[in-house]
């Protein structure tokens, strides 16, 4: 990469280079770094004690608990789906495969507000199943169940999307060899497929989890904002902010920002690991 920087035919003069780097860095500093700094500056504006007090507030603790619970349900469900979908799609040829992949990607192109709204149209009091649900005294909208459903919807494609291309690239020979040698389907999956796909899986889980914990729009529609009951961390941020409790709002926000930074770090590590694993795979032993 460095070698081409020295060839005058395929590189720019040092001045132009510095200017371009400078403009790029200023853009990133204003748009990305400054907001990052601001979150923590505002959260610790009055010192460490008010920050900690804001976090151990009962409503905030309830919000943290609900966010963790929601992710703990939505992420494993989508992992199970991702593994199942990628096995079917990557290891077999069948009619309608591309169409199926497009359908799996659908939640990514739906606005968060609409993602929440479809559940209100389905389960809300005026919804399609509303009268039946009321008759049987089942409530979904404005309860944690609705929040889990909406979160599962918006995080639906993450794991499958990482696994499908990876497992397609890895081919089927290893699995076919394992089956021919007498291993069962489950054993082949656990001993051959899963170890090969582990970094992609982990990557998908990390992204899925970040979105599950941070989702705002979809959850906002189905939550009803009942404090201590149906407020997740992002919703609690909105409540605190609208109550002009800025330090508290930014304290909760700082926790989610730490999660985002951890997600980015984990993502870099996984990318690095998987690239290395891939390199070992393709370099034959001497």
């Amino acid at each position, binding site marked *: 990469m*460095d070698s081409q920087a020295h060839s005058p035919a395929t590189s720019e003069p040092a001045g132009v280079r510095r200017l371009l780097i400078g403009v790029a860095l200023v853009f990133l500093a204003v748009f990305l770094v400054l907001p990052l700094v601001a979150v923590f500056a505002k959260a610790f504006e009055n010192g460490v004690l008010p920050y900690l007090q804001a976090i151990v507030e009962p409503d905030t603790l309830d919000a943290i608990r609900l966010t963790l619970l929601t992710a703990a349900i939505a992420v494993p469900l989508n992992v199970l789906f991702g593994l199942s979908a990628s096995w079917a799609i990557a290891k077999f040829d069948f009619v309608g495969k591309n169409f199926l992949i497009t359908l799996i990607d*659908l939640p990514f*192109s739906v606005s*968060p*507000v609409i993602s929440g709204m479809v559940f209100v149209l389905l389960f809300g009091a005026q919804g399609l199943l509303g009268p039946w649900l009321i008759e049987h005294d089942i409530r979904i909208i404005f309860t944690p169940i609705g929040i889990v459903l909406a979160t599962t919807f918006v995080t639906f494609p993450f794991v499958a999307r990482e696994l499908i291309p990876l497992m397609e690239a890895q081919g089927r020979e290893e699995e076919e060899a394992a089956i021919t040698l007498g291993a069962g389907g489950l054993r082949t999956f656990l001993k051959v497929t899963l170890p090969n796909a582990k970094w992609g899986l982990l990557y998908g889980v990390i992204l899925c989890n970040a979105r599950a914990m941070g989702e705002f729009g979809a959850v906002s529609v189905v939550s009803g904002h009942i404090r201590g009951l149906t407020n997740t961390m992002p919703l609690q941020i909105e409540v605190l902010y609208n109550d002009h409790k800025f330090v508290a709002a930014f304290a909760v926000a700082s926790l989610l920002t730490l999660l985002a930074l951890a997600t980015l770090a984990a993502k870099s590590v996984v990318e690095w690991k998987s690239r290395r694993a891939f390199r070992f795979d393709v370099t034959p032993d001497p």
Partner: protein
Amino acid sequence: MAFQLKKPSPLPGFGLTLGFTIFYLSLIVLIPLSSLFIKTASLSWQEFFSTISSPRVLASYRLSFVASMIAAAINTVFGVLLAWVLVRYSFPGKKLIDGLVDLPFALPTAVAGITLTTLYAQTGWLGQWFAKVGIKTAYSELGIIIALTFISLPFVVRTVQPVLEDVQKEVEEAAASLGAGRFKTFMRVILPEMRPALLTGFALAFARALGEYGSVVFISGNMPMKTEITPLLIMTKLEQFEYSEATAIAVVMLCVSFLILLLINLINWRSQRLMVAR
């Protein structure tokens, strides 16, 4: 050979995994999404049209569309610059910056919303400078554009980066030896190479900005006819239990999103064909 739905394979588990995949897909995505279209079908044409052609709804469509366009355009220009700098040059902290580009994907939108609002409010770190020259940033159209630019920042960088890494150095050398300057080489040789990726990145950024709710709701001020984006209007209608109107507004937006998705697929399909043709 007879027509087959599935090619034979020695591997087991096809029925089970495909069955579960379709079952779960239907349960979580297809059935809930279909409720939107079932609800739409229950509206009369007149109801539907009078809703989506009301001045307030049209104003929200216009605002969402224009603001998303501008945000995507800003990100296209800076996305190319960032991708170029990250691929071609080396400087201290490059790895860190490369990782940081994905921050808007990882940072919850509510956090982005309150942070940007605080930064660009009249007394904020950045807003005060704009206020001095009489420009209102937060609680105006400009604030919406800033928020949308933030949340759609990574798309163009991430679509252009791999293409730029693959551009053959020989082609640039050839251009240089034929007498083209660096700028001309960029415009005539490198830019055409990047075009499909650029369009894809632009469309992805635009689509994401169009549907965005969390970050904008804080910074926009939410004034009907002025700073009310479409997702927010849908939210307002839902809170007033006007499900029919919310549905009509949403269906139009969803169709636009699907059109963009289709466009992206067409671009990718075409550029893949071009690659094969070469």
